[in-house]
């Protein structure tokens, strides 16, 4: 790096010429003793020098820019480890205080009497996430297929902005709507339909429902993106063999955009798994495994949100919550890694 910069500064004809002219000006001052000639040479020298300096600063800026961007990028990675370290360090106290097994496999969450069993919450989280994905994935896929393959062009162009806006709506808005609309519907119609008459409407199912609504736009948007990147010629190849549109979608489009669909599902999963405020507004906030899907429960992220106000009154609670955060972090990490591996396999297998 320094050598190239040095090269630019020194090894240029411009510099030599400038120095030569400077020498001439000195000559004219001391030997010829002509002030006008001296001034003339000096002016030329300064102009050349300035031009050269501009030339050098361009490269200097470029070099600095590259370095600065690199430093910022590297510190992003550093941030990842910093976060992990903070979480590990913060949860050290609770892991020392209680056994790891008790934290994870006991369902007894009573912060005031010093019990921090997370089992029920972990199971609830998994149930809520799984149910929301079961609802969201098929519906989103069908929507995405309709948009890319069947909808007329005008309709397609019209519907995209709606979905994009939905994806950007703050989750508290979804939470509020769920509280005002979904909770009564689940209480009065859906739960009785499944034979549960005692539901308050606050529970795992309501949380799953609002989560699935929240991940729709993400999965739809990404799937539309990957469906429309399948080359027309591939679809033509399938259609020209006499397949119907649906056969082409099912057997060719799904495979060809398989990696994209998987990526969309992983992303939707991450969103559903970590969503906090909307869930905490409707899930019921009870740290137990309910007997039905319509009973109240608690998820990991929502647990942090509904307990952080007590941190100052129970000292070890802070550490327990950080441990919960660590769990969230690790699951997201593992899921990302898994996603990466599956994606790599899928794109090899379903290459076209």
């Amino acid at each position, binding site marked *: 790096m320094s050598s190239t910069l040095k090269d630019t500064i020194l090894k240029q004809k411009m510099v030599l010429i400038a120095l030569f002219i400077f020498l001439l000006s000195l000559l004219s001052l001391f030997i010829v003793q002509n002030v006008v000639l001296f001034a003339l040479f000096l002016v030329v020298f300064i102009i050349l020098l300035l031009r050269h300096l501009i030339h050098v600063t361009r490269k200097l800026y470029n070099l600095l820019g590259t370095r600065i961007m690199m430093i910022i990028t590297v510190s992003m990675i550093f941030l990842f480890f910093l976060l992990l370290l903070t979480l590990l360090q913060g949860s050290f106290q609770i892991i020392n205080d209680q056994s790891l097994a008790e934290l994870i496999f006991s369902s007894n969450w009573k912060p005031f009497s010093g019990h921090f069993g997370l089992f029920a919450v972990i199971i609830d989280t998994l149930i809520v996430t799984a149910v929301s994905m079961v609802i969201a994935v098929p519906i989103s896929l069908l929507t995405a297929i309709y948009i890319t393959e069947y909808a007329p062009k005008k309709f397609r162009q019209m519907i995209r902005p709606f979905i994009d806006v939905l994806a950007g709506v703050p989750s508290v808005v979804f939470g509020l709507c769920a509280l005002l609309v979904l909770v009564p519907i689940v209480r009065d119609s859906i739960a009785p339909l499944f034979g549960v008459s005692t539901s308050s409407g606050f529970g795992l199912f309501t949380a799953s429902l609002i989560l699935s609504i929240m991940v729709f736009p993400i999965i739809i948007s990404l799937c539309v993106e990957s469906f429309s990147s399948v080359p027309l010629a591939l679809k033509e190849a399938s259609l020209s*063999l006499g397949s119907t549109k649906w*056969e082409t979608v099912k*057997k060719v489009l799904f495979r060809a955009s398989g990696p994209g669909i998987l990526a969309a599902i992983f992303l939707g999963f991450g969103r559903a798994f970590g969503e906090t405020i909307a869930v905490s507004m409707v899930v019921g906030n009870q740290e137990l495994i309910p007997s039905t899907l319509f009973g109240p429960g608690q998820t990991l992220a929502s647990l942090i949100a509904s307990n952080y106000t007590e941190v100052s009154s129970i000292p070890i609670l802070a550490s327990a919550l950080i441990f919960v955060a660590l769990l969230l972090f690790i699951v997201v990490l593992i899921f990302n890694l898994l996603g990466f591996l599956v994606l790599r396999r899928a794109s090899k297998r379903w*290459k076209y």
Partner: protein
Amino acid sequence: MTKAPANQIETKTLNVSFHSNQVLKNIDIKIPAKQLTAIIGPSGCGKTTLLKSFNRLLEIQDDVKITGELIVDGTDIMKPGLDVPDIRKKMGLISQKPYPLPMSIFENVAYGLRIHHDKKAKALEAAVQQSLQEVGLWNEVKHRLHDPASRLSVGQQQRLCLARALAVQPEVILCDEPTSALDPVAAQQVEKLLLKLKKDYTVVLVTHTLRQAKRVADYVIFLYFGRVLEQGPANEVFTNPKSAEMKAYLSGEIS
């Protein structure tokens, strides 16, 4: 059944436009059965569009407007209410760059057969083998039939696409510059195959290499900015061109 008509495909005042841009203007052509017809002309003159109109593949794109008659085997296939997949099944399509389906070599060839429920499992294998032999690919792939088709070389992929099309027993094979993405050896293989296939199939070949058309064509259609300026038996068109544009094209002034 009546005797197959001498003209496999016939168009009457076929007009095609994308958005408001008319790509094909009043096309009236005849494509003879069991011969190799070459559609030639400069790039961007609607050759591919014409080819894809034959099996109604154009209409899957946005903003396409097609009018006129398109007669295949004596029926106007533009009439509403016809079963489009059945029409397409009659005509295999080989595209410029090979697009193997995202599945194994075997499944690529079996794809059409499975869709049409043509064969039982045993017969399916035999049919796949026969199609692969027909394009001279069997010996190269028989040990790895279940590998992803994308692992084949481009030349092999193109022959696989041909085998895939032949498996559903079409009457017509539509080829859209099938050799332009291939190396000379693979291109020659495909060209020889087309010559062999014209005994049993009607072959329509879009090409922008004049030399290829001269080597293989029985019948020639010359397209120039969306119009058919010349059509007829190859030796007639090549030796005795009528239009100034065709003369210019033959002499290499336009390409």
